[in-house]
């Protein structure tokens, strides 16, 4: 074994003097201002986006399909040229100082970028060598990182023979193996089983506590809620909201109650009654057969009050479900509830949301 005291899963620290010395000390890890990307075909992917990410922060980029998340990531990792605006990583301009930016970053894209003909160990070793780590050190580090990602048993297996989840993990390991100071992960948990997801979040949290900045995009709002320090919601190439998950959730109300009224009842009197209640923020009528959604400050105290009120009005409630506000609510509130047309897995999920919530924009 190597001499590292492994009390916790330690990834290699940011590699050596050059990178650390190159960081401009005080500024944010990522600074983006009025970023615009218009593709050659004329499609505007980013229509003037501004945000900044602090060092050590886990920053989640949320948005429906086609909202520009991946475009933003690819500009920040120097893979795509911006049309206008400013984008800096660790203080370096992504175009004028692309090499300095590349010194600082790790990246795992939406598609798994591992070499099928190389073994897991070789893939990771190459990952470090590409970041100018000497071969011996690169290989040792690769071995250690494989263990962290529970891939130690398949170190000598070619990537082509690994399962989808393992390949995904190997890809993520490759983004982290050289000890980057800013990590970009485009939908990192897609294709991971729940255990691996949990492990990844733990690892990212650990990295962020040690000063690594994590920028990620995700469709799993629940995860973003739990794992991100701040989230930004992107819609149609514009940032519609940036904040901590807690702040954003408070904005839409503390929680909601989902009520189903007995079949033959007309929901209009119920809605009127509910809307007049003091703690109700908003009532959203459901379509036939769908529950009525009542946004309240505190669902657990409001539930009995609501039941009593409806009983007094002579309205029979078939079922009542309560839920704390989630990023889903925030997301849907700010991005609308239209289903997205992209043919992808997430597309069907969005359609699902739309169906549940009545397929219309609130307000």
């Amino acid at each position: 074994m190597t001499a590292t005291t492994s009390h916790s899963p330690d990834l290699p620290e940011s590699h050596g003097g050059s990178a650390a010395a190159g960081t401009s000390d005080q500024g944010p890890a990522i600074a983006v201002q009025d970023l615009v990307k218009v593709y050659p075909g004329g499609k505007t992917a980013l229509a003037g986006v501004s945000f900044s990410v602090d060092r050590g922060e886990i920053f989640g980029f949320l948005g429906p399909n086609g909202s520009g998340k991946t475009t933003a990531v690819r500009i920040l990792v120097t893979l795509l040229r911006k049309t206008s605006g400013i984008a800096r990583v660790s203080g370096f301009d992504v175009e004028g100082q692309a090499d300095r930016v590349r010194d600082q970053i790790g990246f795992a894209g939406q598609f798994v970028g591992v070499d099928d003909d190389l073994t897991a160990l070789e893939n990771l070793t190459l990952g470090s060598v590409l970041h100018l780590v000497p071969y011996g050190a690169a290989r040792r580090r690769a071995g250690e990182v494989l263990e962290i990602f529970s891939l130690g048993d398949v170190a000598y297996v070619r990537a082509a023979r690994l399962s989808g989840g393992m390949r995904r993990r190997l890809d993520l390991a490759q983004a982290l193996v050289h000890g980057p100071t800013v990590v970009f992960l485009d939908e990192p948990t897609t294709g991971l089983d729940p255990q691996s997801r949990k492990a990844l979040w733990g690892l990212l949290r650990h990295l962020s506590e040690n000063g690594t900045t994590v920028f990620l995009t995700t469709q799993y709002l629940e995860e973003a809620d739990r794992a991100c320090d701040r989230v930004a919601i992107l819609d149609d190439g514009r940032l519609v909201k940036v904040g901590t998950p807690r702040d954003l959730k408070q904005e839409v109300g503390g929680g909601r109650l989902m009520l189903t009224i007995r079949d033959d009842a007309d929901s209009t009197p119920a809605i009127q009654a509910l809307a007049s209640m003091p703690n109700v923020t908003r009532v959203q009528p459901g379509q036939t057969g769908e529950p009525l959604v009542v946004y309240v400050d505190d669902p657990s105290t409001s539930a009995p009050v609501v039941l009593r009120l409806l009983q007094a009005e002579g309205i029979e409630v078939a079922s009542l479900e309560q839920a704390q506000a989630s990023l889903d609510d925030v997301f849907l509130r700010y991005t609308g509830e239209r289903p997205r047309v992209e043919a992808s897995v997430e597309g069907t999920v969005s359609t699902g949301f739309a169906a549940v919530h009545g397929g219309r924009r609130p307000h």
Partner: protein
Amino acid sequence: MREPAIRDVKVPVSVALGARNLIKNLRAPMLITASLAQPLIWLVLFSQIFRGLADTPAFRRLGYGSYLEFLVPGMVVLSMLFTGLQSGLATSTDIATGMMDKLLISPIRRSRILAGRVMADAVTMLLQGAIILAAALLMGARVRTGWIGAIAMLVGATTLGVVWASVPNLIALRTRNSELTMVGGLLLTLPILFLTPAFFPRPLLPEWVRAVAAVNPAAYVIEMGQRLMSLGTDWGQDLRTLIALAVASVVLIPLAVLASRAAAE
């Protein structure tokens, strides 16, 4: 750790990438096998079919040993052309799998990526050329200029192959599509081979083919090989071959380099 003692050698990135490309050729040898098998089959077939050509006075007057010896350089060059195509396909695969992204976001010069590709291509081509030459020797061919001549022929053909590989790589980088790379490369490969004296000596070729061959670097390399196989060196002609290769490199390699720079579009 299973391997306790690995020295901290500072491997140049281009060498590491070259090794990686070679390892891929060895582990997934389908394409490489194909680009070796085709010239070998042609070597056997054509040396039989056109055998009679060697007995005609027109051919005999030129002084080549046998049709087989005459054919070897063309088949060596053919295998290089195929391997150049395979190089472009490997690049388009890297683009499709996201591997190219990994290379592009690492703090290495863009030229290192190309250098790694060229290194692997050159080694592969040299080995292939040697195998084809060995097969020809087994079939009874002789190299009049000896070892030095054989090596010069292989090195010349490899240089041509590496320069030519710029074209399929250029297509791969521009189109980011392996089908287009395959089709484009194949469409170009055979004319480049046939518009040379690979199968018929220059004096026996139609006027227009001779005209095209005059600007086709492959023609120069093949003819140099044919001289080395049967006739001996001709420094004046060999110099022209070098110039043809230099011109081709100056035109094609910068195109591929520019395309690789623009890959981050």
